[in-house]
């Protein structure tokens, strides 16, 4: 990635500058807001998916219990995977819009402004 293209006519950032930004409180806050959300959610939905897969493999009798008419636990469990995927997606977009984008935008403006 060439820094030259985006910073035409400005002095390019040195490695030390990037490390200063990286260590700064604003960036650390942004990093924390991202990681403290995406890592636990990823762990959570992978665990939830694995529970589903393991239940299908090793507890078919439980999955076959009928709940309403011909709709059984397995079908509801599978559809809940769809619901959780849609739900996480919607929640994350709201979170990113409120908590990530404004801070990232501020940092970006500061950094690109610096080099003006």
């Amino acid at each position, binding site marked *: *990635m060439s*820094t030259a*293209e*985006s*910073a035409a006519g400005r002095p390019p*950032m*040195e*490695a*030390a500058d*990037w*490390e200063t*930004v*990286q260590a700064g409180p604003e*960036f650390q806050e*942004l*990093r924390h807001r*991202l*990681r403290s959300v*995406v890592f636990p*959610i*990823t762990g959570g*939905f*992978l665990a939830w*998916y*694995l529970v*589903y*897969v*393991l*239940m*299908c*493999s*090793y507890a*078919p009798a439980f*999955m*076959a219990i009928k709940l*309403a*008419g*011909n*709709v*059984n636990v*397995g*079908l509801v469990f*599978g559809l809940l*995977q*769809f619901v959780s*995927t*849609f739900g*996480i*997606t919607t929640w*994350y*977009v709201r979170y*990113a819009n409120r908590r990530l*984008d404004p801070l*990232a935008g501020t*940092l*970006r403006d500061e*950094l*690109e402004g610096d080099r003006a």
Partner: protein
Amino acid sequence: MTAQHTGTALLAAAGVEGSNPVLNIGIFGGFVILTLAIVVRVSRRANRGAADFYTAGGGFSGQQNGIAISGDYLSAASFLGIAGAIALNGYDGFLYSVGFLVAWLIALLLVAELLRNTGRYTMGDVLAFRMRQRPVRAAAATSTLTVSFFYLLAQMAGAGGLVALLLDITSKPGQAVVIAIVGAVMIAYVLIGGMRGTSWVQIIKAVLLIAGAGVMTVWVLGLYGFNLSALLGDAVAHGGKAGEALLNPGKQYGKTGVSRIDFISLALALVLGTAGLPHVLMRFYTVPTAKEARSSVVWAIWLIGIFYLFTLVLGYGAGAIVGPDEIKKAPGAANSAAPLLAYALGGTVLLGIIAAVAFATILAVVAGLTITASASFAHDIYANVIKRGKVDGKDEEVKVARITAVVIGIVAILGGILANGQNIAFLVALAFAVAASANLPTILYSLFWRRFNTSGALWSIYGGLGITVLLIVFSPVVSGKPIDPATGRSPSMLQGVDFSWFPLDNPGLVSIPLSFLLGYLGTVLGKDRADQGKYAEMEVRSLTGVGAERSTAH
């Protein structure tokens, strides 16, 4: 994926009853002419640089890209294959849909936005950001070309089967001609339209596919008074002795202890492979910002999720309305479930539309794969490894990419003709397993782990690739499955030999954890140290979007 259990070899019989090949070809021809006209139109505005050819100058909106992603991702296997698997194996067919959908959360949360901010055209860009350019680009390109080639070959060979099914062309030379035409149209899309044209083909196809499946879904549900339980009950009633088992997991995978573990291995590759597929990754570069990349994935998740809900209804609907015996007798067996259902609902015309959509699906997917593979070769191998980043003028790299696209297209045509009728559907599973093993660990380490270095990247890519291919070669999908008394053939690719020692069809359970481990060990044991300044730059850029390539299209 699911075509694994259907076997294209069965497709040599006559076409689907009630099918009107002339009508099918006519509708498909209309699709090709319409899309080619659009491709020519949108490419007139192009400025013909590398950015335009590879990523349409990053000029797509999140919505457009999300639709294109679903067009890229929903292959014929996920339409015909999953509907057929649900019709014949019931619940176990649905398990694929769940894995294919949940996988997108990894792309949403961990990959799409950060990748958009740190690369321009290829997966190699992200790795090369803070590592030694030439070795990691060569490794990334090797893995990209391998995954794309396996996927491409499976699609092209599948086209041969679809020809027999839908156009009633049964002779091998006749099918070869159709495969060559499909390949030639695909090359035309890529050469004329680049990523811009290819994306529009995928967008049009996605709209047709999802709308077509949606109409059929509402139709089927309408026949049962919008009562899902009644539909399921009818599928059970038509399922004969094994009918009740259709509603429960385990009909296909619950037979033995090994098949259960094999299923878990498959589930892992499905959920972790998607975010490592190079043609999916490349689509994140076609939007101007990380926010638009996020929006792309959101659109893709909703469209893909809704589509898989449709296939659930279509699969059980085919079981209830057409019946498993009819489906098994038809050419293509499981693959014919959706076309037979279309015929039962809307007669020859609906069958023709669905047949044409299935063809359009293959075209759009192979075009996406070809442009990804050609970008990886031209940008990573030619421009950065061979020419060491000193390409004379911007046009030279695009010229190489175009030549590569033609070569890949010709190889795909020849490979598709040779593989036609062979049982090579496992190649798609292999592509997912390689993507999950070689690509995903490397991308995640690269974006999130400060210490990750060149040795770690090389160990995880080459190690993951090598282990996955090795385990597949010595697995029962290649040799050694017992002969099926119904067909007199072994379901393995090779007949009459047995050199298998790995018990599972799907290598993911072993290869994915090992690849993560190799990436860790390579980093810790390798002599080179990570460049902290470069990592600082990469992390700040990836999270804030500072200096990211903006859209060039206005």
